[in-house]
């Protein structure tokens, strides 16, 4: 279901540094509309940070994030570094040349390059700040066009109602934000719900912030969502502590989908739940995904669940995306040694197999020789990307052909 569909989310060379720590380092991937994209990796490998960068909880260090074709996030470090590099490069060159005209030429070139990068930086800063403003401008324009046309055609009797609706819609359009079409479901259902708010307040909070004021509409929507996630209307007036873990997670899901998001970032939504409840929540997400046409970025460390739920899977290791493939392909032909090690660690409900299971240990320094040839993410088979250098690329290709 992933082929020839529009790209909903595109992450390009995303870097997120916290001081000297490179939490996410040059990660690129695309999420197609309607698919579930799984991100796996051990704790601290940057998968959560990636999710949070996408939803703009952090200002990213470098790279760009495109959502529905619009750049919602952009970092500037790579441009700054390019300027620094260019300066060093050209200064060296200039020092070696003696001819004054050539010298002049070189410094001209340098100036041009710096100017181009500075323009890039300016654009990135602008996009980073103003993507929502641009979006709301578009929305306002659309609403204006629609209602002006309607008003011109309407009779005098219809006009007051229409005007009211118009002003309502206009207010919403002014407050519209592109990023609210990305919603998040968190790991811990207990910690992510405010204990002092009723379920109604929790679920409707986003709507109200977005400018919805009509109580009836809000209630209607809240009830709809509750029923969608398998709860009942009566639950709306209760507090979170009155629910079990699975029900709390359902409330978290309802809070996310009431905003009618196109993309949901599910950050370990089932890790904190019991097995039986886990299955309930996974089934719920699966149903919603089909009925609402959701796209989900599914972050988890339980590989059995990720395999079950995702169409494509990206494997992260220490801030880098090391392998990316459809989930069947990844589990059938894991290429990168880290993926192999990760797959060998999955416990299965089969005691006889478990007694003989050998875990493969991943030792990056022993596996790869990246001293000369630097690795990058390359496509070894259609849709199957692996982080490798030239020698490894040839090796992986040969392996795939054999299999």
């Amino acid at each position, binding site marked *: 279901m992933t082929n020839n569909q529009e790209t909903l989310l595109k992450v390009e060379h995303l870097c997120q540094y916290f001081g000297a720590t490179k939490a996410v380092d040059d990660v690129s991937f695309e999420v197609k509309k309607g698919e579930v994209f799984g991100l796996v990796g051990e704790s601290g490998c940057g998968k959560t940070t990636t999710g949070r960068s996408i939803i703009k909880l952090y200002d990213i260090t470098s790279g760009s994030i495109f959502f529905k074709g619009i750049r919602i996030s952009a970092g500037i470090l790579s441009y700054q570094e390019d300027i620094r590099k260019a300066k060093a490069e050209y200064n060296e060159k200039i020092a070696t040349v003696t001819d004054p005209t050539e010298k002049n030429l070189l410094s001209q070139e340098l100036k041009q390059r710096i100017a181009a990068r500075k323009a890039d930086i300016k654009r990135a800063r602008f996009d980073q700040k103003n993507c929502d403003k641009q979006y709301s401008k578009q929305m306002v324009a659309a609403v204006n066009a629609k209602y002006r046309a309607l008003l011109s055609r309407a009779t005098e009797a219809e006009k007051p109602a229409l005007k009211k609706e118009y002003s309502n819609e206009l207010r919403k359009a002014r407050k519209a934000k592109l990023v609210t079409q990305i919603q998040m479901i968190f790991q811990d259902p207990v910690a992510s719900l405010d204990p002092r708010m009723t379920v109604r307040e929790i679920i409707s909070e986003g709507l109200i912030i977005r400018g919805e004021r009509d109580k009836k509409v809000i209630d209607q929507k809240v009830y709809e969502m509750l029923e969608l996630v398998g709860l009942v209307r009566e639950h709306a007036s209760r507090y979170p502590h009155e629910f079990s873990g699975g029900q709390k997670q359902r409330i978290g899901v309802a809070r996310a989908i009431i905003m009618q998001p196109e993309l949901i970032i599910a950050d370990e939504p089932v890790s904190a739940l019991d*097995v039986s409840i886990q299955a309930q929540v996974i089934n719920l997400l699966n149903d919603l995904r089909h009925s609402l046409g959701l796209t989900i970025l599914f972050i988890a460390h339980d590989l059995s669940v990720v395999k*079950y739920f995702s169409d494509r899977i990206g494997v992260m290791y220490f801030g880098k995306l090391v392998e990316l493939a459809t989930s069947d392909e990844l589990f059938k032909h894991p290429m990168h040694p880290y993926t192999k090690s990760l797959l060998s660690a999955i416990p299965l409900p089969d005691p006889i197999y478990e007694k003989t299971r050998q875990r493969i240990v991943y030792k990056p320094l022993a596996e790869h020789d990246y001293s000369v040839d630097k690795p990058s993410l390359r496509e070894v088979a259609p849709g199957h990307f692996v982080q490798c250098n030239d020698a490894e690329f040839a090796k992986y290709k040969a392996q795939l052909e054999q299999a």
Partner: protein
Amino acid sequence: MENKLHVKDLTISFRTTNGKVQAVRGIDFDLAKGETLAIVGESGSGKSVTSKAILGILAGNSIIEGGEIIYDGKDLLKIPEDEFHKIRGDKIAMIFQDPMSSLNPIIKIGRQLTEAMILKGKSRQRESRENFNKYLKTLNKRMIEAIAKDDASKAAALTAKCKDFDKFEYKHLELENAYNVARSAASEAVSDIVDILFEIEKNALKDGNYRIKNVKNLALTSINPWVVSVKADALRASCAAMMAGIKDLKIVSEKLTKINAILEEALALEQPNFFAMGYYLTFSGEKEVPNKPVPELNAYLRQYLDEKFMLSFIADAKQALVYSAKVSCKEMEEAIAVLKQYRSVFQAEKLDKKACESAHKILSKKVIETIDLLDIKKDSLVYTFSSGFKTEIDKYFNGLVKNPKEAKRFAKQQADYDRRVAKGKEPDWKVVPASYTDLELVKRNMLNQIDRMVAHFEELIAANDNCDFDAKAVALIDFLKANASGVVNKVTKRIAKARAIKLMEEVGISEPRKRYNQYPFEFSGGMRQRIVIAIALAADPDILICDEPTTALDVTIQSQILELINRLKAERQLSIIFITHDLGVVANMADRIAVMYAGKIVEYGTSEDIFYHSAHPYTWALLSSMPDLDTNEKLDAIPGTPPDMLYPPVGDAFAQRNKYAMKIDFERQPPMFKITDTHYAATWLLHPDAPKVEPPKAILDRIARMEEKRGVQNDQ
């Protein structure tokens, strides 16, 4: 196999503002040595409560309604708190789910690791001294009573013998103490030298002069006839050379290496038999022991001791033991008679408080008198009888007062509620259900205790006839010896540090010397859990309780930690109780599995039984609700939530969520049906009259798939 832990009919409730929550409702299991028992179930099924009960760390509002947890002959539910101190952490250790919350964030890892070692070391010393004095005194008394009843001169000779024992024990301690001081100095020095060499290599030596001087002092302290003797001069020379060239780190590290070599060689030497040596030096009149290699010397001294003293002393001790056992048997017979006589007091329809209390006094006295003072094994059933019995009596008479009050309150509240409902109001409060003390149960418990005591005494009397008193006498002397050396065995900070670093290496922490001085926040999740495991292992426990130790960790780390636990289990013959809800993990770890639901064990068997031939619908539901790598169809989620244990269901607790439930499931609780010798399940489906039901397709498919996969693997 040897049974380490035995849990029988354990019932635990919690007192809450809404009433009594029944957390554990009569569970039985046992744990063999070197075995892993997994307890599987949803949260709230009572699995953690069970483990906390075993460790005696239940919350304050818990009520232990009945049952017993037998460890090492003791009932952990009855023993007093200060006896529990010797078990908790020492014999039974626990690893918790969240490693961060079980470590103190503001104390360095090293101190947290060594804290228990040092504390336990001190208390062991104290205990050893008390034991030694007490037992030697009793032995002397019993010897006189057994052998020289009316013979004053013989009695004097026996007393002299005991005094001799004490005297040369004293010499033994003196020798051993000196040896220990020297040896621990040597091991401290070695550990320091390794540290300093490490830091010199890394070019980060701090307080160099002071520490090198300290090493010199330690090295010189280690000069002792039995530690560093032959090479003492070389050692002194090296130390002097080192101090002379202290400014030059190259010389220092060279000399340190030399000293280290000497000390390590010394540490590898065999320990002489100080016990025998003590006797030789005290009574032979010689000032020095013969000059021989240690093994030969040990043999010679041993023989000398045996001939001159030990054999006759053991013979006397044996006689004393036989006599003591006889006395105790006689007491036991009397006690049985008294117990049987007073049993009727507790059989009455309504117990009489005065009669009960006086009976308790008499019984406790009688039971305590049966204790064989020379028996080194403490019969805690006897020790705890009095307090345990008193608790039951108090419970009964408290219940007698409180039950009517509770009934009155309940009736009043219920009437109030009904009145409001009748008026058409809808009260926003609920009637707190009445919680009565089950007087019949308490009475039965009392009678059970008496019966058990009688059975226990009869067993002991029967066992006494074919008891090996020779072995017992040797064991007693060994016990005295062990306690005597326990007095001199001191755990200093340095020794504890060396031990902690060894432990850290054992659990797979790299660079333990550097890690020793770090704080918990500097460790990653997996490393923190390793530290917690190291702390749990520091006391060398028998039983390790792991309460979801890997739930907070990701797959690779989880795999490493599980491997670590499995390896330690094999190396140390640990018995493990493994609590989890992840069945994949269970398949890896468990020898046997108990599936718990709503405070009861619903299925119990080996891991093969549970995974390939499971019989309870709840086990089926658990197994089919988790996806594996080949699952494509919709998951079979268990509908609904576990029942509210304030109002436990009448029938099978799982009936409401069970698609296989029959009518009887809602009416009566199923008993444990036996499937095979190792496999039990509590479900009416196993009743001969029940309709035949197949496990869900998802499970059968998975088993078939697994078999197929394994077949492929075996062929390769």
